[in-house]
């Protein structure tokens, strides 16, 4: 409180009454009305029954754990392994996509920060940004064109005799993994680049002069500097992949659902909002605890994200 007062008085002295009021009102509105209240309201909703509108507020409308029980157990009391497996598979897939992105983006971030000349670096940055301009849906669509049964990869593969019948890349989720790794490349490269750029290139040269092989230079000199950037990028890619909805809907095989699709179904197909809210709370909790755990392991703070 005291600190808030202090901040308030410095703002007043520096920018005046109008600006201070504007900052105070806008930030309060953002934090309370847009960020906190909706989440609380969703949490509240997830502890209620799915009632028709005229019964809301009557005595039938009381708190219950029913929705969460529905997530963990089937009606007959056995474990709801179907939905639990979908959650686990979504998280595992998100980890795999994140690792793929770390591996393919690290060399580019390094080249961008230390290898490329001025013009080449600027061209590379433009080249990285342009695909990101294209709508997310269209990027997924591009992979469908590429991997479909009559897509380019199947046609070429069959023509040069690699395989005889069209391979169903969509069903095998190959297209989905490619599409998701592709979608968030930019979010991985820029934090990585920012971190690596801070490294003085003479350190790399010194290590090389002392006779360190290339892999050791990266392992001992570059990676420790790049770590906050990697963790920050990986966090964003992981959260966005686990929360992706469009790419799984467009590129996912018919037999494998993403957890967000399950939530979508509860809301839009079953019209069971409390159950959908409970599933959303589960997704949020698992993702956030997973990220916090990983950050603890790598000793990086949340404040690094977005820099």
């Amino acid at each position: 409180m005291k600190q808030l007062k202090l901040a308030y008085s410095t703002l007043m002295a520096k920018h005046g009454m109008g600006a201070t009021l504007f900052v105070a009102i806008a930030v309060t509105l953002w934090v309370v009305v847009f960020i906190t209240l909706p989440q609380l309201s969703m949490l509240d909703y997830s502890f209620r029954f799915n009632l028709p509108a005229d019964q809301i507020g009557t005595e039938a409308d009381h708190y219950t754990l029913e929705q969460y029980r529905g997530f963990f157990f089937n009606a007959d009391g056995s474990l709801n392994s179907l939905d639990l497996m979908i959650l686990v598979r979504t998280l595992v897939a998100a980890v795999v996509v994140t690792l793929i992105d770390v591996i393919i983006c690290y060399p580019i971030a390094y080249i961008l920060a230390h290898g490329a000349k001025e013009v080449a670096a600027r061209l590379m940055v433009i080249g990285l940004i342009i695909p990101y301009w294209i709508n997310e849906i269209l990027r997924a669509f591009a992979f469908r064109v590429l991997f479909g049964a009559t897509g380019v990869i199947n046609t070429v593969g069959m023509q040069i005799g690699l395989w005889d019948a069209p391979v169903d890349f969509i069903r095998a989720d190959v297209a989905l993994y490619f599409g998701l790794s592709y979608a968030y490349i930019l979010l991985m490269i820029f934090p990585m680049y920012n971190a690596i750029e801070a490294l003085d290139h003479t350190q790399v040269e010194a290590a090389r002069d002392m006779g360190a092989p290339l892999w050791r230079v990266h392992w001992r000199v570059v990676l420790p500097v790049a770590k906050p950037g990697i963790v920050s990028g990986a966090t964003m890619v992981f959260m966005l992949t686990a929360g992706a909805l469009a790419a799984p809907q467009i590129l996912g095989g018919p037999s494998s659902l993403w957890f967000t699709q399950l939530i979508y179904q509860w809301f839009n197909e079953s019209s069971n909002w409390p159950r959908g809210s409970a599933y959303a709370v589960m997704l949020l909790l698992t993702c956030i605890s997973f990220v916090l755990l990983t950050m603890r392991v790598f000793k990086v703070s949340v404040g690094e994200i977005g820099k």
Partner: protein
Amino acid sequence: MTRNTLFGGAYAIAFFTFLFGPLVIMVITAFNSSRFPRVVPWECFTTGWFGELLGNARLMDGLLNSVIIGLGVVALAVPIGLAGALALSELPARLRAMLYTVLILPILIPGVVLGISTIVLWGQISRGLGVGALYNGFFLTIVGQITFVSAYAMLVFIARLQRFDATQTEAALDLGATPGQAFRKILLPFMAPAIGSAAFITLLASFENYNTTVFTVLSESTFTTALASKVRHGTDPSLSALAVIIITITLVGALTNEAYQRRKAAQAGGPSARSPLYANPITQALTHPGVVFAILVTVIAGLSYAGSRHDSSVCEAAVLQDKMARQEALRAAQQEKIEAQQAQENTLPKSNSAFGGAFGGLGGSTPAPEPVAPKPASPSAFGGAFGGIAPPQSDD
């Protein structure tokens, strides 16, 4: 070292191939007349998919909705983001870290969760207050998107604020300006370019968003949600045509911006100042960003005009003719097979015929053609489809 450079270059090329390959292929499919977006087999060069795209009423309605929502989001998210950045700049370290975590969280929270929580909260509020007007797709989408789009704006402002020289404000205050004047005359003008780019980024983020919008937009649809439902329910190359339009706009923007940056660097006396392009008055005029932009727009307008006059119907008719001819050939081959089989059936005793048993009760004396038999033998899908049509004619 050269070996490493070579490897790095090769890797960069492979990486950018991965980045641009899908886009290039998508662009090519926009001009193929095949109903499914594909490159091979190439049928005809056509510009018809652009017309089909513009004629899609649902997408065009969505476009209008997206613009309305986007303007609303920009109008609210930019001031909120600015307020967030200013608040962070004045808070003591501990509180700042806390507030930063809270404000950055909406970027990390899955969009699905943001969308759901928004409709749940405002659904309850409008029920509680009895105000149905709050519960509409436009309002909910704007509110839902602001939650995280403001954070993007805030990141832009934070980066700009870090370069702000606070002594300027102090000087103004010392010289007798009121704090309000200092804010309006010094800080705001300094932030102006950041306000521009923040507005741009928030507009783009709002326009592109799917995960949150698909929940909050309720029964309306935005451009992106209309697009997604189109992709999910079958694809056709008009979507590739849309990609061509977006990529073209992006490239024009990127090239104009590049010309602008180079000119600025040249005026500042950077390495590009030595470029002969800036010594010659004609090339100097040609590399002016405005001229670059005008040239690009003219070229595109010319190409679009030429494209709109291009008529691929002759070629498409030829392809259709070709398909029909192939089907005809298949049908003829099939008929021959049937006749051969019938001839065989007639010469053999009835009991030996494969179908004799099944059709005996239906009056086996007529030489009933069996449409089922030749079907599996037909080598193509067309053969299969026409197999059902061919046999009735063989009755004659």
